[in-house]
């Protein structure tokens, strides 16, 4: 078994065993606390530029399959785990998680003390790192970690977005003969979805909720979007810092009021910017499937899937423009906004789940209802 090294910019080094591809990759080292859903995490474009540490120690147990892809390929730069299983046991699995990541040239470091690493990131904040299964030059790796670009100020959304527009037509398929998926009778609304790194389950959920979806690149102009005569506009999740996305925010600003608009994650942050707000970087972000979010309108708590390193500053949002609809109960950060006068709303977390709980699927219905009202 080959050795692997994860070196952080502050000089902290973890030595473990190599799985996946024998290679060297670098990125921002972040942790995710989900117990399940590693394949969705690997393939979520929001993780572009990041080495992901999974806090749950047994990873790889159920392999990988074609249905649980959140994009065409994995986007993580590397994976750090406590105990990686080369063996797979699940009826839906097509291949081992190891082979899957190897195919996409992504390295895995296993057997490291992930809890120590997470505690380190929690106290010091996320930092840059290099994961190498080809070099044992610890000092060299630390130097490399110090020289990779910082996530703040980085426009990764443009990098991961689609180059051309395309239609999306498949909905959510049941994963078992026992799963019931509540599907609308057919497409009733045309939704144009900005791809800042969009997860497929958002697209699937839109289709299942009764939408015909056109995905457009992150650089799409407002007039081109309107030219598609959308019933609704969707702003997707995506990687990186929202602040550099000034151009996108400007286009979104033009679209406010033109059609009902729904944003998720980076889409929410861009809407925040478009409504005159600011964003800031969280110390170690929110990544996991267990975050309690209070919906202030219903006064109910949703258990949510989250994956973000930046947040909208509540003080920057004018009461006159938007209302804060959702709040994270762990740290009181902004989780949802709704425009005061226009049919625009967005959430910081991931109602489409994948991975994560389904408590917030109602937001897709809300979007449909908004389009319905607006169409009248």
């Amino acid at each position: 078994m080959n050795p692997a090294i994860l070196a952080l910019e502050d000089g902290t080094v973890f030595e473990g065993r190599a799985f996946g591809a024998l290679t060297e990759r670098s990125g921002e080292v972040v942790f995710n606390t989900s117990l399940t859903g590693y394949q969705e995490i690997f393939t979520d474009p929001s993780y572009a530029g990041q080495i992901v540490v999974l806090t749950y120690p047994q990873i790889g147990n159920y392999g990988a399959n074609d249905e649980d892809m959140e994009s065409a390929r994995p986007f993580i730069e590397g994976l750090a785990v406590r105990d990686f299983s080369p063996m797979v046991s699940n009826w839906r699995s097509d291949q081992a998680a190891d082979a899957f990541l190897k195919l996409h040239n992504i390295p895995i470091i296993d057997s490291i003390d992930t809890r120590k690493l997470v505690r380190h990131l929690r106290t010091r904040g996320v930092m840059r790192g290099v994961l190498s299964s080809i070099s044992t030059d610890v000092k060299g790796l630390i130097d490399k970690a110090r020289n990779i670009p910082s996530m703040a100020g980085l426009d990764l959304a443009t990098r991961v977005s689609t180059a051309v527009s395309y239609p999306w037509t498949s909905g959510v398929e049941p994963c078992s003969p026992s799963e019931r998926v509540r599907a609308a009778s057919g497409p009733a609304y045309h939704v144009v979805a900005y791809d800042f790194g969009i997860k497929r389950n958002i697209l699937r959920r839109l289709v299942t909720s009764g939408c015909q979806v056109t995905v457009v690149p992150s650089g799409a102009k407002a007039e081109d979007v309107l030219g598609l005569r959308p019933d609704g506009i969707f702003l997707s999740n995506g990687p990186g810092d929202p602040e550099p996305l000034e151009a996108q925010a400007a286009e979104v600003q033009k679209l406010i009021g033109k059609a009902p608009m729904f944003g998720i994650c980076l889409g929410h942050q861009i809407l925040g910017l478009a409504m005159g707000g600011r964003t800031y970087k969280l110390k170690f972000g929110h990544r996991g499937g267990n975050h309690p979010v209070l919906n202030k309108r219903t006064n109910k708590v949703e258990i949510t899937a989250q994956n973000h390193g930046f947040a909208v500053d509540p003080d920057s949002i004018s009461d006159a423009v938007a209302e804060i609809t959702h709040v994270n109960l762990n740290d009181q950060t902004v989780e949802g906004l709704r425009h005061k006068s226009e049919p625009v709303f967005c959430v910081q977390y991931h109602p489409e789940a994948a991975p994560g709980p389904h408590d917030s699927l109602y937001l897709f219905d809300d979007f449909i209802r908004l389009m319905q009202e607006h169409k009248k």
Partner: protein
Amino acid sequence: MPRRTDIHRILIIGSGPIIIGQACEFDYSGTQACKALKADGFEVVLVNSNPATIMTDPELADRTYVEPLSVPYLTEIIKKERPDALLSTVGGQTGLNLSVALAEAGVLDEYGVELIGAKIDSIKKAEDRLLFKDAMRKIGLATPTSQLVTDMKGGYDFAERVGYPLILRPSFTMGGTGGGIAYNAEDLDTILTRGLDLSPVGEVLIEESVLGWKEYEMEVMRDLADNCIIVCSIENFDPMGVHTGDSITVAPAQTLSDREYQMMRDGSLACLREIGVDTGGSNVQFAINPKDGRMVVVEMNPRVSRSSALASKATGFPIAKIAAKLAVGYRLDEIRNDITRVTPACFEPTIDYVVTKIPRWQFEKFPGSDPVLGTQMKSVGEVMSIGRTFKQSLAKAIRSLETGKSATKEEPLDESLIPAKLITPTAERLNYILFAFDLGWSVDQVFELTNIDPWFLLQVKESVDLNKSLAAESLETISAATMRHAKRNGVSDTAMGRVWNVDSLAVRAKRKELGVTAVFNRVDTCAAEFESFTPYLYSSYESECEAEPSDRKKVMILGAGPNRIGQGIEFDYCCCHASFALQEFDHESIMVNCNPETVSTDYDTSDRLYFEPLTLEEVLNIYDTEKPVGVIVQFGGQTPLNLALPLQRAGVPIIGTDPKNIDLAEDRKLFGKLLEELEIPCPPNGTATSVEEACEVAGRLGYPVLVRPSYVLGGRAMTIAYDEDTVRRYMREAVVFSQDRPVLIDRFLEDAVEVDVDCLSDGENVLIAGIMEHIEEAGIHSGDSSCVLPPFGIGALELQTIQDYSVRMARALHVIGLMNVQFAIKEGKVYVIEVNPRASRTVPFVAKATGVPLPKIAVGLMLGKKLTDFAHMMQGKTSGVLDVPQFFVKSPVFPFNKFHGVDPVLGPEMRSTGEVMGVGENFGEAFAKAQLSAGSPLPADGTVFISVSDRHKSEAVEVARRFADLGYQLAATRGTASLLKAAGLECVTVFKVNEGRPNAVDLLKAGKLKLAIYTTNGVHSFSDEKAIRRAAIQYRVPCITTMSAARAAVQAAASRRRDPIRVWSLQQIHKGIAATR
């Protein structure tokens, strides 16, 4: 929605005695509920018949009733206390059933008591299998095809339609009592007949088998605002077919992708909402077909359960505590997470370790019982362990079981048996899986026969391979890297020592030299995302220690490990009290235990909790980290005592009685010498280390003799031999002995009265806390005998002698803390049978009867205080005997209904799982209540059946006459009947089983006999007698097997006729004492 202000006084019903399927997990949940509600300013009225629980401590509730859990007594308590609400969900199935019964009897309405937690409709929907199936169909969740039948024909018809195998579950029984798997028509006959009998409503659910499917459990919580969370998912190592209480289980689920997990999560929440559980915790069980993912709901429990206790310990999320708060109106987001302090309880815990639970069985105590695991739970306890990986977790769990050093001979593993042992689940299956891998079997081969998920099997195989690979190393050659790798995968020092043929302490020394030492990680509910303020720890071989020991003065308490017969909740009671006492005496308390059911493993009980196996290695690791000023070993039963001397040798300071003196009391030769010096008589005795020596000693002492191994608790493998053949057979077949562990042989005192004494000693003064007179005579294990405080049949002179001997022995052994002595009185002479200078099984009973907190004072003494310091808590006494204000009877509860084919006769080997206490103004009343609580209520009228051996005949006449005087009818077998008739008593003659029909068994079945008094001459029990005793158990007719108990029964029967239903709270009984405390 904050706390409700319209209710003030809340009634909590506990789960009663420890039985299989309902153990101390409900002491844990009940204690949490009491604490949470009291902390919130509610008045708590608690009822539980089990005195060994922490929850029945007078401090935990405002009113504590140790009274029978029956509708008439509960009605009386409700009438007296007038609670505003009844919390139905923390007292197990017993609490839930009684809540329903009280509601249906109109008692709750009559006294204006609101049911909180779960409403009647929800309970019924969840418990009634047909209603449940309908509810599930409504929300689109599949259940296995099934039908409720009330007769045999219904069963046959269903079998024809669906085919075998079939699962049978009687309605409204606990822990799957009476259920089973029918593979053919013959099985169906047996199980259905039994099930229809056992179900209180005469119903059995027959179900399509989903044997071999993957089995999961989800622990769910919901508040009044409909906020729902999953606390924990659990995956069973053993697939469907084995009761979840008998399955090895793992948290969280290991082999589900997120899609599948979320499907199950959605299903759980839908289930909870449809059943209508307004508030609290529930448990939903699922089965998934490993071939295509088809999922069915198996069942749901609308209350806290064994699994919720496990989930609470596994995640650090206190389900019962939160459930209690939700029941009084709080929302999940209004409750703080104790561990992180900054985040709310409204979230789903995430963990960064793996938790494994393994059940603990004791089939060896029930020879003749069916060892196959099925739908009826048979384990008596369980262990849980936490590891960073499944391998580490499983290895620690196996160590926690303490099955390594057995006093009895075990069947060696046999290669030819592997296929059979893998196919049919028994307690031995895991051992056989390990054995198969050791012999080179593949994962596929084992999977083929077990259907255990291949992922689990591979982990097990890799562990076995790793252990084997260490043979290539040696103590001298092993590298730090290899050592670390082995430790990270759970290999113990002992295991390595075994491979290299060296002592485990040598491995330990080498390991430390290599720099490979254990660290401690925290259970924090959040996988380190937030800081944890609760030192709830487990060991690992990671790189960073989070123990952060304080520099306070601290004491470590070693717990009792898994519940076993003979070592149960009583010891957990003592350990918890030790912890509370340490805190009160300004010491930090550190608890070490591995039993997830207990109060001691609640992170709230001690200042610091180490959830670890109780092995020398693990305890030394904690000691090295914490450096406590003392370690307490005398409260956790035999488990910590086995560690006491090795720990002392390793330099660990043991406080209280010196382990050498504890050991001396166990050492027959040394102790015999001591008694001789003290001029205290004991039955003539000797020791033997060979078959011949045993026969020689027994012959010299004279038969009958009591033979037993040394160093065991609960009379394990103890027997009374009336002849040499029995001794010979026993030595050859039953017991393990060696030069270090000789077999002990005592002259057995027939028909002697046995007495248990608990006392406190500071080394100089000795206070007798209780002198308990056994109702069963000597020869019946003390744990299986009812006993009474104060004694009422022992003369003043004998009491004085008992007191005198106790004091002399306590002084001679320099006892600091608690000591228990067993005496036998025969023909006016007092003999010492056994001395245990440690906490005994009876400590909680005595504490409750006297109102004196014995363990607390014992801890004070261990810390150097004197008895005089506690006089104010001890009725002003520092010597003599404590007074008891009323009559208190402790009665045992037996699991015979779970072990078919076992002769329920009592003997020197303990077989009861739990105990109850009855309180009364007179002995009869207390005994009647205790018998009622123990599940064998004495009848108020009807026919008493008497069949006694020759030597009991004269006593039997007296007993019969008194029953007749009270208005009972008499029936007897031929010999006894002619005797009774000769004495002028009216009596019906009944056939023995082989004499014709209808015989005694038929009459028992038909409900014609209400009480059976059945004694044997003690040599062998004949099949005829066994059949009658079994029938009595099966048809729930109280069966008395000793004359002393028969005499007690007469007094109880008289009380039933004479005394009204009356109840006393412990606070009321001990009013005077409480005031001075």
